[in-house]
């Protein structure tokens, strides 16, 4: 273990470049600045403590995001979010999108605030998978590692989360049209 540490850099070299992104993700999960700061700080301290057990060649990003996610689950914000339950993840096909034309959704998606409000409304289990996929650009495999769920669940959560996003965006565009 001791010999491998020098081959792939110090903890600081690996973690600092991810700092701003970890914070963005933490803020989306907790929806609060000071809780996000506490979450990132605790994550970094835990990661640093466990850095000796991190194996070279494995995915550092998935590893540290997983620590963040697990830390979040036991935080106040995480416990609040956990009370919102989802439909069965593995439940079969996602129904076709009922409302909203691609055009109306496109118009809504051009408005950043509308998207941010829709993301805020999404259950956290959908929000995190969309953030990891669309913002962090993680592969399904990486997301599965980060969230410790099967790839199939990653895909079904993504699909349901996106469907809910589309519904929220098209509702927003209808609301705007009625004004």
């Amino acid at each position, binding site marked *: 273990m001791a010999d491998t540490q020098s081959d792939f850099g110090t903890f600081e070299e690996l973690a600092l470049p991810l700092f701003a992104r970890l914070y963005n993700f933490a803020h989306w999960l907790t929806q609060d600045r000071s809780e996000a700061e506490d979450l*990132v700080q605790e994550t970094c301290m835990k990661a640093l403590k466990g850095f000796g057990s991190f194996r070279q060649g494995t995915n550092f990003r998935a590893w540290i995001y997983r620590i963040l996610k697990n830390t979040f689950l036991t935080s106040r914000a995480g416990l609040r979010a956990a009370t919102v339950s989802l439909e069965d993840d593995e439940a079969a096909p996602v129904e076709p999108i009922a409302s909203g034309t691609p055009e109306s959704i496109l118009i809504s998606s051009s408005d950043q605030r509308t998207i*941010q409000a829709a993301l805020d409304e999404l259950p956290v289990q959908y929000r995190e998978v969309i953030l990891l996929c669309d913002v962090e650009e993680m592969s399904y495999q990486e997301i599965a590692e980060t969230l410790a769920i099967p790839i199939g669940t990653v895909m079904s959560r993504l699909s349901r989360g996106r469907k809910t996003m589309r519904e929220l965006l098209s509702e927003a565009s209808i609301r705007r049209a009625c004004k």
Partner: protein
Amino acid sequence: MTCGEIHGKLAPYVDSELSASELAEFESHLRGCATCAAEALELLQTKRAIRAAATRYVPSPEFRLRMEQSMRSRSKRRWFEMRFPGLALAAVAAVLLIASVTLLLNRTGRERELTEIADLHVTALASSNPVDVISTDKHTVKPWFAGKLPFSFNLPELQGSGFTLAGGRVAYFEHSSGAQLIFDLRKHQLSVFIFKEEPRELTFPEGTVTSTRLAFQMETWREGGLRYFIVSDAPASDVHALGELLRKAARS
């Protein structure tokens, strides 16, 4: 591929999860099917829009600084312990030995005082108003301290040195007020503290000492009845260079 099969691959397509052969088949279908092409485009646009809108929260500069400093110091310590467990033990022994010598020499207060000075530096930088007088002009900063401190001091000539003055504030140390000046050098910030040297204060050695405690470089010396401290995360050579400029100014 049929439209139904395409529909099932829309998400893997926008998420770049299709294999090369699947991608070729998928794209050839899109070229001939306006409905599927419109759906794929919409998904792709939404994905991009989410990416832009969700890159929203930025850590505050104070939080970033706090984390960088804490990671840097802890990371260095852990790296050292992991690489050289034997040496780390020896280092602990050496520290203990030095500590006991320090005790014998009745200098217990020194490390505590150095830590306190480092804390003053960190507190100022973490504050949303690190300086009370904001100016790069020494002719503005020096008069600002007049009447606020029981002494006066000279500010160094910085032209061509790479250092710039960011400003100053009044700092308190051991129940007396002194000056804190903040200088910038590249990405580093350096705090200079100037206090009146009390005759009882013999805990710091005469001349210059450098301490890497808390991952900061420190230098302290006395000159003309005043005690100077420099604290920074900048390299020791830069800290020393600023010290030289201040010593030169004090003598002029």
